Structures are given as structure tokens and as C-alpha cells.
């Protein structure tokens, strides 16, 4: 069971497909097409992930990502659709971290890949909810401000980031 979970990247896939289904239910495609699209994307990803060919496995993220992106574009704007789309993106990243061709423990070692975008999306959403209507741009401004502060803090903490590689003769 654990092996199958890793081979399919189940946690990430479930989150992604659930988000795509959530977006599909309220999409302009209609419920059946929207949900069908989401499920087809999930099935396509599962099929490619189980492919014996390494190139097929490398392209496995394509169907689920396409289904999620289509769902996000077609979804009717609502306070819930935005975090669901962001959650779907997090699911994609979680799925990438759970690569069966690499040593286990990817999600734990690569938590920063999830934390930074997740934090940014959470701040944007919170800003959009808390701020008066029509002030979504403030939410995004807050995200960029926080990200900028974060980057400055990292750069101050690690001055060696500015080191240059010695040129190879």
C-alpha cells in the first residue's frame, strides 16, 4: 500500500484532483465537463506515472496541471475559488516532491518549495478577504512586500550568496 502511495504520489494527486474538481463544479464548462476534465487529468497523470519509460514518467505532471489550469481559468470568481486554485498548485508541488524514482522523504526535505508559495498565496488571500472589496491589489502588494522582506532577511543572513564562482581556466 505504501509502495502504491509513493508510486502514484497519492497525497499530492488527491489534493490536485480535489482542487480541480472543486474548480470544475463551479466552472463555465458545466459540472459534468468540469469534473470530467479534472478526473481525466488525474487519470492521465496516474497512467503516465506508471509508465515503464522514464520520459513518460517525467511528463506525468502534464495532464493534472492542464486540468487544474483549465479549471482555474474557467472557474467563476468567488472567495473560495482562489484558495482552491492555490491549494491545487500546492498539490502539484507535493506531487513533484513525492517522486518514486528518488529516495523517500522528498516532501519533508523540500518543504521550503511548498512553504514559500503557500505562504505567499495565504497572505494574498487573507489580504483579499480582510481588505475592503476592490482592494485585491493591496493583497498582492502585501505578498510582494512580505516576499521582499523574506528575501532581504535571507540575503542578510547568508552574505555568501553574493560570492561568485571562480572562473575555470
Amino acid at each position, binding site marked *: 500500500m505504501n509502495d502504491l502511495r509513493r508510486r502514484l504520489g497519492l497525497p499530492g494527486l488527491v489534493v490536485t484532483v480535489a482542487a480541480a474538481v472543486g474548480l470544475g463544479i463551479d466552472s463555465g464548462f458545466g459540472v459534468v465537463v468540469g469534473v470530467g476534465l479534472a478526473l481525466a487529468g488525474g487519470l492521465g497523470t496516474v497512467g503516465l506515472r506508471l509508465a515503464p519509460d522514464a520520459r513518460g514518467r*517525467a511528463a506525468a505532471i502534464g495532464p493534472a496541471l492542464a486540468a487544474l489550469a483549465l479549471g482555474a481559468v474557467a472557474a467563476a470568481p468567488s472567495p473560495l475559488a482562489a484558495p482552491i486554485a492555490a491549494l491545487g498548485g500546492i498539490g502539484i508541488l507535493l506531487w513533484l516532491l513525492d517522486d518514486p524514482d528518488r529516495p523517500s522523504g522528498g516532501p519533508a526535505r523540500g518543504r521550503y518549495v511548498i512553504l514559500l508559495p503557500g505562504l505567499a498565496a495565504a497572505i494574498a488571500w487573507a489580504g483579499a478577504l480582510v481588505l475592503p472589496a476592490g482592494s485585491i491589489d493591496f493583497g498582492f502588494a502585501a505578498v510582494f512586500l512580505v516576499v521582499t522582506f523574506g528575501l532581504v532577511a535571507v540575503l542578510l543572513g547568508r552574505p555568501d550568496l553574493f560570492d561568485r564562482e571562480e572562473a575555470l581556466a
Partner: protein
Amino acid sequence: MSAPAPGGLHWRPRTYLLLAVGAALAAAGVVLRDPTPLYLALVLLLAPVAAAFAAPRRDPVVRLAWGENGPLDEIRVEGAVTPPEGIAPEDLEVSVARPPGLGGPSAAATRVEGGAVRFEGRWSTDAPAITPVAPPHVVWRDPAGLVERAVALDAADLTVVRYPPELTRLRLVRLDRTTVLPGEIRSRRIGASGEFFGVREAVAGDPARRVNWWASARRGRLLANEYALERAGDVVVFVDLRPTSLGREADERLLGIERATALGVADSFVAAKARVGIALFGEFLDAVPLSTGRDQRLRIRAALASARRAHVGGPSERGGVALRRFFPPGTTTILVSPLVDEAADPLVPHLTRRGYPVVVLSPSPVALLPRGAALAPEDEALADRLARLLRRAELAGTWQFAPVVDWTDAGSLGGFVEFLRRPSPRRSS
């Protein structure tokens, strides 16, 4: 020490996919005035940035400890790649490709264990082989596979050598001593390095105190002293690297057998304190002059590991003439050659006429000849028998000038060793 791979941070294909989809979603969000695609775009666009920040700031240098073992027909290459502090071994991608000429899986199996990435490759060979193993390709890759960075290796090179074990008995063969270079006379002085034996061509790495300046001045080129407390004799291993009419594929197989065999013969005689030289004859003749000891063994190994089949074969007479420039006449010469085109351009008589006692070890190409796909088993047996008879007839011409050992079983050289120890009339290995 292996040369480091080109350095720097590299985005992987899936990063471009995320960035492209993220950019398209951002554009769609702006055009449709809909924040939902923007939220997904935000996540997809920031993920590669986060991955890049977690990457090592410089190309890390990892320590590689590796070696090879196994019996004659199996090669096990094992090793461990240990990352420096601060880098998880799980984030290292290590791939070890199968060395050329060997059979088995295309790459070694890897696993993370004890803070290092361990790898084990099991490959097989059905003939003597001398094959350099390419150092593992190591990159650091973030857990999401978005970004990678080249990793430099701190390791010694590895060469796989397999030759029949009977060659170790070659040290029992009695070799003739040859003395012709100027100044090669007995000395009454007994130095710290033993009894003076003679002089030879100086080679790179000889210390200045070993150079015989008087002999060098007379000869016009650098000559070095040699000491002869335990020296057994002289032998030249002459490897025929000219292309044959068998075609490129068969030539490459024969080349692997010839190089490994020459190394085995040279190693055995060097271990017996004999002076050993190597002559590599393709279009022209390259040589490792006579010498003995550990340094000479390494020189011979390097020369044979880099030997390649020539595109154009030099005339046989050139081989005989050029040999005189490097080795004194009278030196026992072991010619390793398939003798495929010997009838058209004979090499052996040119060597014997110039004073070299030659023994020919000839890897048989019969097993490498292309088979007719439509032949019935009995027809195939008949064709095989005819090919062997033809080969025997071809070798008979060479027997007029030198003894020939027809080497038919690539896994054993017992017949050749016995022949050298007790030369007798025509026989097959």
C-alpha cells in the same frame, strides 16, 4: 583526480513547464480580470525561486571512494559518494554508466546508506578486457526536481583489467638479457640502488641522478642507469593495432583482447623483475622503452589503456624498422596480433630479420566471424570447421619465421604459458 563537470545552477525542464503555465495563468487572470488563475500562477511561479534558494551556493565537491573486484568474467564496480556537510545524500543524483565493451545493465544500482550514496554495478565480460570506468555523473538536485547544480568529484580514476590468471605463471619463463647500448658494462661500484646493470632510454619521471650523463653525451639523447640485482631479462610486447579486413566491430573486440593480454603479459614479467617494453604499432610505432618497476607498470598500463585501433595500418616493414629505434635486437618479442591479413603484408619476417626472436600470440578471430542466419546447425558446424582450417593454413605461413600460438579460448592462456616455458612444435592454445 577527475575533471570537474561544468558548474553552475541549471533549471530543469519541469521548471520551464511550471513557469510557462504560471505565466499563461497570470496573463489569463489579467485579461479576464479574475483573481483565481492569479493564485495558481503565484504558487507555480514562486516554487522554482524557493527551490533555487535552497541550492548550494557553489558547486559542492563530493568524495568518491570506489574500486572493482570480481572473477575473470564478472566485474563488480562498487563505491560510495559522500557529500560535504550541509548536503543531504538523498539530494545527490549519482549515475554510473556501464563501461564500453561490457555486458549487463546499462547503469549501476544506487542506494542511500550511512550518509552516502552507494552504488554497485555488476557487469560481465566474455574476453580479456582493459576498460576505463567513467567517473560517476553526480549532480545535486532539489527534492522537487526543479533545479540542479553540478558536483565536482574528488576521486582517482578507475580502470577495469581482466586477463587470464595463467599469465601470472609467466614469471617462471627464462628470458634472454640484451646489452647493446653504449656504456652498458659491468660496474664494480655497488650503489644504494643495487648493482649497475646498464643504460636505457630515459623516460619522464626519472630522477636526475639516474641519468647517465657520459652515455647521454655520446649518444646524443638522454639515457638513464639501471641496476640489476634481481633483473631477470628483457621482453618487448608488440601489439598490432592495424585495422583488419574483419570490420570495425570485430576489430574493436580484438583490440580489447589484445590490450588486456598485453597488459597481463607485461605485468607478469615486470613482477618477475624483468625489463619490459611495449610497442604499439598502428600507422606508426609508439613505444614505452624497456624498464622495470612500479613506475614502468603504470606507464605500460596508461599506454595500453589509451591505445586505439589505427584508421590506416602502417606497412609491416615500418614496424620492424621502427622497433630498432626503441629496443635492441635480440630482445625477446611477444607479438600480440590476430594475424588476419598476415599473408598480404607480413609483419613477423620483418621483425625476425631485424634480430628479434619473436613468439606470436594470436587471438583467433574465428569466433567473431559473421554467421549466416539461414544456416542449418550441421552447415554451421561445417562452416566453422572450414574457417578453422583456413585459419590454420594462414598461420602455417607465419610458422616459417616464428612460433605461433593460436589462441582460441579467450578465457584461458594456459597453452601459451606452457609454450613459453617449454617451447615445442606447433600447437594450439
